[in-house]
């Protein structure tokens, strides 16, 4: 009797064979392993500030220190135009999404090589690793956001009605980071050069993004080329929604979204097609 009950729950059959050509994304597998994503995020957060004296305060200290440096160089010395917004809050508003993006990009690009042990010993959809690294940055972002609220109260800045769009900009910065990181993470498995490229890439990208300065200093004919950088759209969007500067998202924003989606989709396919050799080459 017990046997027949057993038979009702037919075990799933798995076919293992060499894959060729373009690999299917198999996002269903990722869905089955969603709890692993959750646990990896939880692990990263638990471990991140272990054995530090200041703990999670680092999530605030890092952007604040950058803001102070920017404030001195661009605010006091270079006197960058900020549309009448006090420079500290002007730059901090941009540093928030930028911090989320750069941490996500760096951690996710290194996620496979820092978890080599898991990759070579156990089966799970490898996408779990970069995905968890990217999402793990949201907690730091949330902590740093608390200071922004305090600053807005101090500087008496009221957010615009467009504040509801903020999650969309956050999503865009995550998608952009994930798209690029998928490429870099997969390449990193074979060529560790990625580890050396990352700091330069991040720094270069920061200069190309209107974090320390306002996007308005870019002349009109360069605007479209400038919007090829999705983070420019995100930073502008943040200032628009929170501080009421800049004009709302338009054509340039659409370009940003399309670019980051192209990176995401191509990154997913590239990652999946390289995935089959990860355990052998890492």
């Amino acid at each position, binding site marked *: 009797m017990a046997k027949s009950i057993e038979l009702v729950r037919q*075990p*799933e*059959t*798995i*076919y*293992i*064979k*060499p*894959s060729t050509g373009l690999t299917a994304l198999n996002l269903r597998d990722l869905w089955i*392993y969603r*709890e*692993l994503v*959750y*646990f990896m995020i*939880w*692990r990263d957060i*638990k*471990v991140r500030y*272990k*054995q530090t004296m200041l703990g999670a305060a680092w999530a605030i200290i890092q952007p604040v220190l950058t803001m102070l440096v920017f404030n001195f160089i661009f605010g006091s010395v270079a006197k960058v135009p900020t549309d009448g917004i006090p420079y500290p809050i002007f730059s901090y508003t941009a540093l928030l999404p930028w911090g989320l993006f750069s941490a996500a990009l760096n951690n996710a690009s290194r996620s496979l090589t820092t*978890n080599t*042990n*898991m*990759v*070579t*010993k*156990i*089966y*799970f959809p490898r996408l779990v690793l970069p995905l968890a690294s990217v999402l793990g940055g949201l907690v730091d972002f949330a902590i740093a956001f608390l200071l922004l609220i305090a600053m807005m109260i101090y500087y008496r800045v009221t957010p615009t009605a467009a504040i509801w769009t903020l999650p969309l900009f956050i999503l865009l910065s995550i998608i952009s980071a994930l798209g690029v990181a998928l490429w870099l993470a997969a390449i990193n498995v074979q*060529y560790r050069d990625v580890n050396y490229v990352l700091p330069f890439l991040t720094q270069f990208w920061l200069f190309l993004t209107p974090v320390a300065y306002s996007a308005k200093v870019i002349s009109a004919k360069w605007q479209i080329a400038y919007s090829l950088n999705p983070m420019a759209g995100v930073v502008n969007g943040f200032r628009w929604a929170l501080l009421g500067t800049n004009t709302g998202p338009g054509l340039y924003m659409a370009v940003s979204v399309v670019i980051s989606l192209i990176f995401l989709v191509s990154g997913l396919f590239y990652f999946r097609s390289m995935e*089959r*050799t990860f*355990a*052998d080459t890492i």
Partner: protein
Amino acid sequence: MATAIHVDKLSKRYRIGAAQTKFKYGMLREVLMDVAMTPVRAFKAFSGQGMRGASSVAYIWALNDVSFDVQEGEVLGIIGRNGAGKSTLLKVLSRVTEPTKGTVTVRGRVGSLLEVGTGFHPELTGRENIYLNGAILGMKRREIESKFDEIVAFSEVEQFIDTPVKRYSSGMYLRLAFAVAAHLEPEILVVDEVLAVGDAEFQKKCLGKMGDVAQQGRTVLFVSHNMSAILRLTQEAIVIEKGQLVKRAPTSEAVDYYLSAGHAEAGERLWESDEVPLNAAPFVPVSLRVKDQHGKTVDTIRSTEPITLEFEYRLSAPTTGLRVGFYLSTMRGEFIMTSFDTDEPEQFEKFSARQTGRYVSRCVLPADMFNEGRYALGVNASSFGVRRYFMDENALAFNVDISGAPGTHWPEPRVGPIRPRLEWKIEKMD
């Protein structure tokens, strides 16, 4: 009964670079040229040109045309030397790596104990690691919660469950890791060498747990160098040699085949260059010999004679902290002893740093030590706490003949691997 695993003409090829022979003369000019050309090569590799025609790339078939079926509820042993392809087979079955050719059909969830403790984080507590490791092994949170107490009880670390595992002793760490893996309830369980963990008591417990799993009608693939465990837990076994399945038979027959094949090269074992793993460099094993008191290489030695063990090897670069030594174990996989050539502190001072060149490490086992039977000689070359260059626990086997040994005037088998000649004194007390 249904087929749980169907392996059909499975092959796996690995690419091995010919890095060691790259610079013939070791000239700086060559090295500089090579460095200068690196970006060009990288570009070619990326664009898919060049690499295919390059003759410097070599391939090895870690698995070559392997086919077998495992029925549901069967416990199958997998036997083979280090590097024979066992681990590659398990990796393919557990989907860690893809095959190059052939297919596998697996019915049910595969749980692998390829290496226990994967994903353990030293900073997290025992409790946190149970959840994390459970999730990595594919358990649902509910499943982990319901088995949590059982896992903790099995691991015997109740007191320290809220302590970061970096403060654990290595034994506690491994016990906890095994406990999580052992409570996974997949339809198919793949076990590789986990029984080398912990003390004898815990090993017994692990074997018991594996026996339970098998009795519940689940399929188990079991790889171990411990022949007594294989004999105890499996009815049938396959033998893998150089990537090929060479035998499938009832376990006792397969074990006999494995022990007699390849090993008994008349008291001598030579290493071909393709048998040495690439990561052993700079250590290159050359030969291993068992010699009698006249210096003759022998397969069978009398227990009343001293036995000379000789391990010849090369160092392709100067090495510090090196120790080279022997394991001796019975054919059932129980260890008898371990000894290293620099066990004496003065010896270690003198030889811990060794120059490039050819060496022999030799030791003499005293006469009147072993009981009758067949013994396995293993070798190990390592730097303590730094790295293990080379290890083969089953490099060579030899027989011991006990004619003339103490107690042989009684024609009875004696238990135990040693049969020392002891100085007995008999006193009359009254």
